[in-house]
Protein backbone atom coordinates (compact mmCIF):
# COMPACT_ATOMS: atom_id res chain seq x y z
CA UNK A 1 0.00 0.00 0.00
CA UNK A 2 1.46 3.41 -0.90
CA UNK A 3 1.41 6.57 1.17
CA UNK A 4 -1.43 8.23 -0.75
CA UNK A 5 -3.83 5.41 -0.02
CA UNK A 6 -2.87 5.35 3.64
CA UNK A 7 -3.89 9.04 3.90
CA UNK A 8 -7.39 8.44 2.64
CA UNK A 9 -10.08 8.56 5.32
CA UNK A 10 -11.89 5.24 5.65
CA UNK A 11 -15.18 5.48 3.78
CA UNK A 12 -18.12 3.85 5.53
CA UNK A 13 -18.83 0.68 3.60
CA UNK A 14 -22.55 1.29 3.38
CA UNK A 15 -24.57 -0.88 1.02
CA UNK A 16 -27.99 0.46 0.12
CA UNK A 17 -30.77 -1.92 1.16
CA UNK A 18 -33.08 -0.28 -1.39
CA UNK A 19 -30.67 -0.97 -4.24
CA UNK A 20 -30.21 -4.66 -3.41
CA UNK A 21 -32.27 -7.43 -4.97
CA UNK A 22 -34.17 -9.78 -2.68
CA UNK A 23 -31.45 -12.39 -2.95
CA UNK A 24 -28.66 -9.87 -2.30
CA UNK A 25 -30.49 -8.80 0.87
CA UNK A 26 -30.66 -12.41 2.05
CA UNK A 27 -26.97 -12.92 1.32
CA UNK A 28 -25.89 -9.79 3.21
CA UNK A 29 -28.41 -9.58 6.05
CA UNK A 30 -28.21 -13.14 7.40
CA UNK A 31 -25.14 -14.89 8.82
CA UNK A 32 -22.83 -15.60 5.88
CA UNK A 33 -23.65 -18.69 3.82
CA UNK A 34 -26.39 -19.91 6.20
CA UNK A 35 -29.43 -19.36 3.96
CA UNK A 36 -30.96 -22.65 2.87
CA UNK A 37 -33.69 -22.07 0.32
CA UNK A 38 -36.90 -24.07 0.11
CA UNK A 39 -38.51 -24.43 -3.33
CA UNK A 40 -35.49 -22.82 -5.06
CA UNK A 41 -35.62 -21.51 -8.66
CA UNK A 42 -34.51 -24.83 -10.17
CA UNK A 43 -37.75 -26.40 -8.90
CA UNK A 44 -39.63 -24.04 -11.21
CA UNK A 45 -42.62 -23.45 -8.97
CA UNK A 46 -43.91 -20.70 -11.24
CA UNK A 47 -47.24 -18.91 -11.59
CA UNK A 48 -49.91 -20.92 -13.42
CA UNK A 49 -51.66 -17.68 -14.46
CA UNK A 50 -49.12 -15.31 -15.97
CA UNK A 51 -48.27 -17.23 -19.16
CA UNK A 52 -51.97 -17.21 -20.15
CA UNK A 53 -51.78 -13.41 -20.09
CA UNK A 54 -48.58 -13.30 -22.14
CA UNK A 55 -46.49 -12.27 -19.14
CA UNK A 56 -43.27 -14.16 -18.35
CA UNK A 57 -43.11 -15.73 -14.90
CA UNK A 58 -40.17 -15.95 -12.50
CA UNK A 59 -38.60 -19.24 -11.41
CA UNK A 60 -39.30 -18.36 -7.76
CA UNK A 61 -42.56 -16.44 -8.41
CA UNK A 62 -40.95 -13.34 -6.91
CA UNK A 63 -40.19 -14.60 -3.42
CA UNK A 64 -37.36 -16.62 -1.89
CA UNK A 65 -38.11 -18.56 1.32
CA UNK A 66 -35.93 -20.66 3.58
CA UNK A 67 -34.15 -21.02 6.89
CA UNK A 68 -30.94 -19.36 8.03
CA UNK A 69 -29.06 -18.10 11.05
CA UNK A 70 -29.11 -14.55 12.35
CA UNK A 71 -26.45 -13.80 14.98
CA UNK A 72 -26.35 -17.56 15.47
CA UNK A 73 -30.11 -17.96 16.04
CA UNK A 74 -32.22 -20.11 13.75
CA UNK A 75 -34.70 -17.99 11.79
CA UNK A 76 -37.07 -18.59 8.92
CA UNK A 77 -37.00 -15.89 6.28
CA UNK A 78 -38.83 -14.72 3.16
CA UNK A 79 -37.66 -12.01 0.75
CA UNK A 80 -39.95 -10.49 -1.86
CA UNK A 81 -38.42 -9.27 -5.14
CA UNK A 82 -39.84 -5.84 -5.93
CA UNK A 83 -38.41 -5.79 -9.45
CA UNK A 84 -40.66 -8.71 -10.46
CA UNK A 85 -44.21 -7.38 -10.89
CA UNK A 86 -43.69 -4.87 -8.06
CA UNK A 87 -43.43 -7.72 -5.57
CA UNK A 88 -47.09 -8.53 -6.23
CA UNK A 89 -48.49 -11.52 -4.37
CA UNK A 90 -49.78 -14.19 -6.73
CA UNK A 91 -51.12 -17.63 -5.92
CA UNK A 92 -47.75 -19.42 -5.73
CA UNK A 93 -45.94 -16.48 -4.13
CA UNK A 94 -48.58 -16.35 -1.39
CA UNK A 95 -48.57 -20.11 -0.91
CA UNK A 96 -44.81 -20.03 -0.35
CA UNK A 97 -45.26 -17.41 2.39
CA UNK A 98 -48.08 -19.41 3.98
CA UNK A 99 -45.98 -22.59 3.88
CA UNK A 100 -43.11 -20.79 5.58
CA UNK A 101 -45.29 -19.65 8.50
CA UNK A 102 -46.93 -23.09 8.83
CA UNK A 103 -43.54 -24.78 8.88
CA UNK A 104 -42.51 -22.32 11.60
CA UNK A 105 -45.40 -23.63 13.71
CA UNK A 106 -43.92 -27.13 13.39
CA UNK A 107 -40.19 -26.37 13.67
CA UNK A 108 -40.37 -23.38 16.03
CA UNK A 109 -37.50 -21.13 14.85
CA UNK A 110 -36.52 -18.15 16.99
CA UNK A 111 -38.32 -15.80 14.60
CA UNK A 112 -39.70 -15.39 11.10
CA UNK A 113 -38.25 -12.49 9.11
CA UNK A 114 -40.22 -11.04 6.23
CA UNK A 115 -38.17 -8.81 3.90
CA UNK A 116 -41.25 -7.22 2.42
CA UNK A 117 -41.30 -5.33 -0.86
CA UNK A 118 -44.68 -5.47 -2.51
CA UNK A 119 -47.47 -3.45 -4.06
CA UNK A 120 -49.90 -6.00 -2.61
CA UNK A 121 -52.02 -8.47 -4.53
CA UNK A 122 -50.77 -9.23 -8.05
CA UNK A 123 -53.76 -7.99 -10.03
CA UNK A 124 -53.11 -10.48 -12.87
CA UNK A 125 -54.07 -13.23 -10.47
CA UNK A 126 -57.04 -11.39 -8.97
CA UNK A 127 -59.02 -13.63 -6.63
CA UNK A 128 -56.22 -16.19 -6.24
CA UNK A 129 -53.91 -13.39 -5.07
CA UNK A 130 -56.50 -11.92 -2.69
CA UNK A 131 -57.14 -15.32 -1.12
CA UNK A 132 -53.38 -15.89 -0.90
CA UNK A 133 -52.85 -12.63 1.01
CA UNK A 134 -55.65 -13.42 3.45
CA UNK A 135 -54.09 -16.84 4.03
CA UNK A 136 -50.73 -15.19 4.70
CA UNK A 137 -52.35 -13.00 7.39
CA UNK A 138 -53.96 -16.03 9.02
CA UNK A 139 -50.70 -18.02 8.94
CA UNK A 140 -48.70 -15.06 10.33
CA UNK A 141 -51.14 -14.60 13.22
CA UNK A 142 -51.07 -18.36 13.94
CA UNK A 143 -47.26 -18.16 14.21
CA UNK A 144 -47.50 -15.18 16.56
CA UNK A 145 -50.16 -16.91 18.66
CA UNK A 146 -47.73 -19.82 19.03
CA UNK A 147 -45.13 -17.42 20.45
CA UNK A 148 -42.90 -17.07 17.39
CA UNK A 149 -41.78 -13.49 16.74
CA UNK A 150 -42.61 -12.17 13.26
CA UNK A 151 -40.35 -9.32 12.12
CA UNK A 152 -40.99 -7.28 8.97
CA UNK A 153 -38.23 -5.27 7.25
CA UNK A 154 -39.29 -2.56 4.78
CA UNK A 155 -36.75 -0.64 2.72
CA UNK A 156 -37.23 -1.51 -0.95
CA UNK A 157 -38.04 1.02 -3.66
CA UNK A 158 -41.53 -0.43 -4.14
CA UNK A 159 -42.47 -0.04 -0.48
CA UNK A 160 -45.04 -2.26 1.22
CA UNK A 161 -48.61 -1.58 0.14
CA UNK A 162 -52.05 -3.09 -0.20
CA UNK A 163 -52.56 -6.50 1.35
CA UNK A 164 -48.88 -6.70 2.26
CA UNK A 165 -49.24 -3.42 4.17
CA UNK A 166 -51.88 -5.15 6.29
CA UNK A 167 -49.70 -8.25 6.63
CA UNK A 168 -46.85 -6.05 7.90
CA UNK A 169 -49.05 -4.44 10.54
CA UNK A 170 -50.07 -7.91 11.75
CA UNK A 171 -46.45 -8.60 12.74
CA UNK A 172 -44.71 -8.18 16.10
CA UNK A 173 -42.13 -5.71 14.92
CA UNK A 174 -41.49 -3.49 11.89
CA UNK A 175 -38.14 -2.04 10.84
CA UNK A 176 -38.13 0.66 8.14
CA UNK A 177 -35.64 2.93 6.46
CA UNK A 178 -36.28 6.52 5.47
CA UNK A 179 -36.63 5.28 1.88
CA UNK A 180 -39.14 2.58 2.83
CA UNK A 181 -42.86 3.19 2.54
CA UNK A 182 -45.78 1.48 4.27
CA UNK A 183 -49.47 2.04 3.58
CA UNK A 184 -52.68 0.39 2.50
CA UNK A 185 -53.81 2.09 -0.73
CA UNK A 186 -50.91 3.29 -2.85
CA UNK A 187 -50.65 6.94 -3.98
CA UNK A 188 -51.90 6.26 -7.53
CA UNK A 189 -54.89 4.32 -6.19
CA UNK A 190 -55.91 7.15 -3.87
CA UNK A 191 -55.55 9.74 -6.64
CA UNK A 192 -57.52 7.58 -9.09
CA UNK A 193 -60.40 7.02 -6.70
CA UNK A 194 -60.55 10.38 -4.85
CA UNK A 195 -59.01 12.86 -7.28
CA UNK A 196 -55.76 14.79 -7.43
CA UNK A 197 -57.08 17.36 -4.91
CA UNK A 198 -57.21 14.58 -2.32
CA UNK A 199 -53.77 13.21 -3.14
CA UNK A 200 -51.26 14.15 -5.82
CA UNK A 201 -49.41 10.90 -6.52
CA UNK A 202 -46.82 12.74 -8.63
CA UNK A 203 -45.74 14.81 -5.62
CA UNK A 204 -42.99 12.46 -4.48
CA UNK A 205 -42.11 14.52 -1.39
CA UNK A 206 -45.75 14.33 -0.28
CA UNK A 207 -45.87 10.58 -0.94
CA UNK A 208 -42.79 9.97 1.21
CA UNK A 209 -43.97 12.40 3.93
CA UNK A 210 -47.21 10.48 4.49
CA UNK A 211 -46.12 6.89 3.78
CA UNK A 212 -42.35 6.94 4.44
CA UNK A 213 -40.46 5.37 7.31
CA UNK A 214 -39.96 8.72 9.06
CA UNK A 215 -43.70 9.29 9.48
CA UNK A 216 -44.44 5.65 10.28
CA UNK A 217 -41.81 5.76 13.01
CA UNK A 218 -43.06 8.99 14.59
CA UNK A 219 -46.70 7.90 14.73
CA UNK A 220 -45.79 4.48 16.11
CA UNK A 221 -46.59 2.32 13.06
CA UNK A 222 -43.02 1.07 12.86
CA UNK A 223 -40.73 0.15 15.72
CA UNK A 224 -37.26 0.96 14.44
CA UNK A 225 -36.10 3.55 11.90
CA UNK A 226 -32.73 2.82 10.30
CA UNK A 227 -30.50 4.21 7.57
CA UNK A 228 -30.79 2.74 4.06
CA UNK A 229 -27.99 0.30 4.83
CA UNK A 230 -28.10 -3.51 4.82
CA UNK A 231 -25.88 -3.68 7.92
CA UNK A 232 -28.27 -1.35 9.79
CA UNK A 233 -31.22 -3.57 8.86
CA UNK A 234 -29.27 -6.60 10.07
CA UNK A 235 -28.51 -4.95 13.43
CA UNK A 236 -32.16 -3.92 13.80
CA UNK A 237 -33.36 -7.44 12.95
CA UNK A 238 -31.07 -8.89 15.63
CA UNK A 239 -32.48 -6.44 18.20
CA UNK A 240 -35.99 -7.42 17.08
CA UNK A 241 -35.43 -11.12 17.80
CA UNK A 242 -36.65 -10.37 21.33
CA UNK A 243 -39.65 -8.34 20.20
CA UNK A 244 -42.40 -10.96 20.51
CA UNK A 245 -45.64 -9.31 21.59
CA UNK A 246 -48.37 -11.54 23.03
CA UNK A 247 -51.38 -11.71 20.74
CA UNK A 248 -54.10 -11.01 23.29
CA UNK A 249 -57.47 -9.30 23.38
CA UNK A 250 -56.26 -6.53 25.77
CA UNK A 251 -53.29 -5.81 23.46
CA UNK A 252 -55.65 -5.57 20.49
CA UNK A 253 -58.03 -3.30 22.43
CA UNK A 254 -55.14 -1.04 23.43
CA UNK A 255 -54.11 -0.73 19.80
CA UNK A 256 -57.67 0.06 18.71
CA UNK A 257 -57.90 2.73 21.41
CA UNK A 258 -54.62 4.27 20.20
CA UNK A 259 -55.85 4.32 16.61
CA UNK A 260 -59.15 5.83 17.71
CA UNK A 261 -57.33 8.62 19.57
CA UNK A 262 -55.16 9.23 16.53
CA UNK A 263 -58.19 9.48 14.26
CA UNK A 264 -59.96 11.79 16.73
CA UNK A 265 -56.97 14.10 17.25
CA UNK A 266 -55.58 14.19 13.74
CA UNK A 267 -58.05 12.56 11.38
CA UNK A 268 -58.45 15.71 9.28
CA UNK A 269 -54.73 16.50 8.99
CA UNK A 270 -53.82 17.09 5.36
CA UNK A 271 -50.12 16.26 5.63
CA UNK A 272 -47.78 14.39 7.94
CA UNK A 273 -46.18 17.37 9.76
CA UNK A 274 -49.69 18.73 10.46
CA UNK A 275 -50.59 15.38 11.97
CA UNK A 276 -47.48 15.45 14.16
CA UNK A 277 -48.48 18.90 15.44
CA UNK A 278 -51.96 17.70 16.35
CA UNK A 279 -50.57 14.59 18.06
CA UNK A 280 -48.03 16.65 20.00
CA UNK A 281 -44.99 14.84 18.60
CA UNK A 282 -41.98 16.00 16.60
CA UNK A 283 -42.80 19.67 17.18
CA UNK A 284 -39.41 20.64 15.78
CA UNK A 285 -40.25 22.30 12.47
CA UNK A 286 -37.12 20.76 10.98
CA UNK A 287 -38.48 17.24 11.68
CA UNK A 288 -39.21 16.44 8.02
CA UNK A 289 -35.57 17.20 7.17
CA UNK A 290 -33.73 15.84 10.23
CA UNK A 291 -31.20 13.07 9.79
CA UNK A 292 -32.38 9.63 10.86
CA UNK A 293 -30.24 9.57 14.01
CA UNK A 294 -31.56 13.02 15.04
CA UNK A 295 -35.15 11.98 14.37
CA UNK A 296 -34.76 8.95 16.60
CA UNK A 297 -34.12 11.28 19.54
CA UNK A 298 -37.54 12.95 19.17
CA UNK A 299 -40.63 12.07 21.16
CA UNK A 300 -42.99 9.79 19.31
CA UNK A 301 -46.24 7.93 19.84
CA UNK A 302 -45.86 5.28 22.49
CA UNK A 303 -42.41 6.43 23.57
CA UNK A 304 -41.02 9.56 25.26
CA UNK A 305 -38.09 11.52 23.83
CA UNK A 306 -34.64 10.03 24.37
Amino acid at each position, binding site marked *: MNGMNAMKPALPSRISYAECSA*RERLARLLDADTFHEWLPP*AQRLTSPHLAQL*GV*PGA*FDDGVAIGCARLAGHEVFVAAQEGAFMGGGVGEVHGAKLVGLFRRALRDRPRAVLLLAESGGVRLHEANAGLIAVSEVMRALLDARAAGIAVIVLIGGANGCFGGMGIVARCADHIVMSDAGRLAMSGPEVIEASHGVEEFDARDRALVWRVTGGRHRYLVGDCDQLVEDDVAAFRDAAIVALDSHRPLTLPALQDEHALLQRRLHDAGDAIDAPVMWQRLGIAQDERAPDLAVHELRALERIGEPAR
Partner: protein
Amino acid sequence: MSNPAPALETLSYAFPGTKPAGPFAPVLAGVVGSGNLEVLLEASAEPVCRFDVQTSARGFGSIWEAVLGDFQRRHDLAGVRVSIHDMGATPAVVGLRLSQAVAQLRTP
Protein backbone atom coordinates in the same frame (compact mmCIF):
# COMPACT_ATOMS: atom_id res chain seq x y z
CA MET B 1 -64.92 -9.80 -28.00
CA SER B 2 -61.35 -8.68 -27.51
CA ASN B 3 -58.41 -10.65 -28.81
CA PRO B 4 -56.73 -13.08 -26.44
CA ALA B 5 -53.52 -11.84 -24.84
CA PRO B 6 -50.48 -12.36 -27.07
CA ALA B 7 -48.75 -15.59 -26.14
CA LEU B 8 -45.19 -15.77 -24.94
CA GLU B 9 -42.64 -16.95 -27.45
CA THR B 10 -40.58 -20.01 -26.59
CA LEU B 11 -37.22 -20.51 -28.29
CA SER B 12 -34.76 -23.37 -27.94
CA TYR B 13 -31.17 -23.69 -29.12
CA ALA B 14 -28.37 -26.19 -28.50
CA PHE B 15 -24.75 -25.41 -29.33
CA PRO B 16 -21.99 -28.03 -29.10
CA GLY B 17 -19.21 -27.25 -26.62
CA THR B 18 -15.92 -28.81 -25.57
CA LYS B 19 -15.53 -27.59 -21.97
CA PRO B 20 -17.73 -29.65 -19.61
CA ALA B 21 -18.89 -27.59 -16.62
CA GLY B 22 -19.06 -30.67 -14.39
CA PRO B 23 -21.55 -30.92 -11.52
CA PHE B 24 -22.61 -27.60 -9.96
CA ALA B 25 -25.46 -26.17 -7.89
CA PRO B 26 -27.99 -24.20 -9.95
CA VAL B 27 -27.09 -20.54 -10.47
CA LEU B 28 -29.59 -17.67 -10.89
CA ALA B 29 -28.76 -14.19 -12.22
CA GLY B 30 -31.06 -11.26 -12.88
CA VAL B 31 -34.74 -10.60 -12.23
CA VAL B 32 -37.75 -10.69 -14.57
CA GLY B 33 -38.57 -7.01 -14.89
CA SER B 34 -39.16 -4.58 -17.73
CA GLY B 35 -36.10 -4.64 -20.00
CA ASN B 36 -34.54 -7.31 -17.82
CA LEU B 37 -34.37 -11.10 -17.61
CA GLU B 38 -33.45 -13.96 -15.32
CA VAL B 39 -30.96 -16.63 -16.27
CA LEU B 40 -30.87 -20.05 -14.59
CA LEU B 41 -27.86 -22.33 -15.17
CA GLU B 42 -28.16 -26.01 -14.36
CA ALA B 43 -25.87 -28.98 -14.91
CA SER B 44 -26.91 -31.48 -17.56
CA ALA B 45 -25.49 -34.70 -18.99
CA GLU B 46 -25.62 -33.48 -22.59
CA PRO B 47 -22.41 -32.60 -24.48
CA VAL B 48 -23.95 -29.24 -25.43
CA CYS B 49 -24.97 -25.90 -23.98
CA ARG B 50 -28.76 -25.86 -24.28
CA PHE B 51 -30.80 -22.65 -24.15
CA ASP B 52 -34.54 -22.46 -23.44
CA VAL B 53 -35.88 -18.94 -23.73
CA GLN B 54 -39.34 -17.72 -22.78
CA THR B 55 -39.88 -14.12 -23.86
CA SER B 56 -42.68 -11.57 -24.03
CA ALA B 57 -41.02 -9.87 -27.03
CA ARG B 58 -42.03 -11.94 -30.05
CA GLY B 59 -40.19 -12.13 -33.35
CA PHE B 60 -36.58 -11.72 -32.25
CA GLY B 61 -35.49 -15.35 -32.74
CA SER B 62 -32.61 -14.52 -35.08
CA ILE B 63 -31.19 -11.98 -32.60
CA TRP B 64 -31.45 -14.46 -29.72
CA GLU B 65 -29.62 -17.03 -31.83
CA ALA B 66 -26.84 -14.52 -32.57
CA VAL B 67 -26.47 -13.36 -28.92
CA LEU B 68 -26.54 -16.88 -27.46
CA GLY B 69 -24.24 -18.20 -30.20
CA ASP B 70 -21.76 -15.41 -29.43
CA PHE B 71 -21.91 -16.29 -25.72
CA GLN B 72 -21.23 -19.94 -26.51
CA ARG B 73 -18.32 -19.06 -28.85
CA ARG B 74 -16.68 -17.26 -25.93
CA HIS B 75 -17.33 -19.90 -23.25
CA ASP B 76 -17.56 -23.16 -25.25
CA LEU B 77 -19.62 -24.80 -22.47
CA ALA B 78 -20.86 -28.38 -22.39
CA GLY B 79 -23.15 -30.05 -19.84
CA VAL B 80 -25.06 -26.83 -19.13
CA ARG B 81 -28.74 -26.06 -19.47
CA VAL B 82 -29.58 -22.34 -19.58
CA SER B 83 -33.19 -21.33 -18.92
CA ILE B 84 -34.22 -17.73 -19.54
CA HIS B 85 -37.32 -15.73 -18.63
CA ASP B 86 -37.16 -12.48 -20.58
CA MET B 87 -39.20 -9.28 -20.44
CA GLY B 88 -37.84 -7.41 -23.43
CA ALA B 89 -34.17 -7.13 -22.44
CA THR B 90 -31.78 -5.67 -25.03
CA PRO B 91 -28.98 -7.90 -26.40
CA ALA B 92 -26.45 -6.07 -24.20
CA VAL B 93 -28.43 -6.83 -21.04
CA VAL B 94 -28.85 -10.47 -22.10
CA GLY B 95 -25.10 -10.74 -22.58
CA LEU B 96 -24.45 -9.11 -19.19
CA ARG B 97 -26.76 -11.49 -17.29
CA LEU B 98 -25.25 -14.52 -19.02
CA SER B 99 -21.76 -13.31 -18.07
CA GLN B 100 -22.88 -12.73 -14.45
CA ALA B 101 -24.31 -16.25 -14.30
CA VAL B 102 -21.10 -17.80 -15.65
CA ALA B 103 -19.02 -15.71 -13.21
CA GLN B 104 -21.09 -17.13 -10.32
CA LEU B 105 -20.58 -20.62 -11.74
CA ARG B 106 -16.82 -20.14 -11.53
CA THR B 107 -16.71 -18.66 -8.01
CA PRO B 108 -18.46 -21.28 -5.85
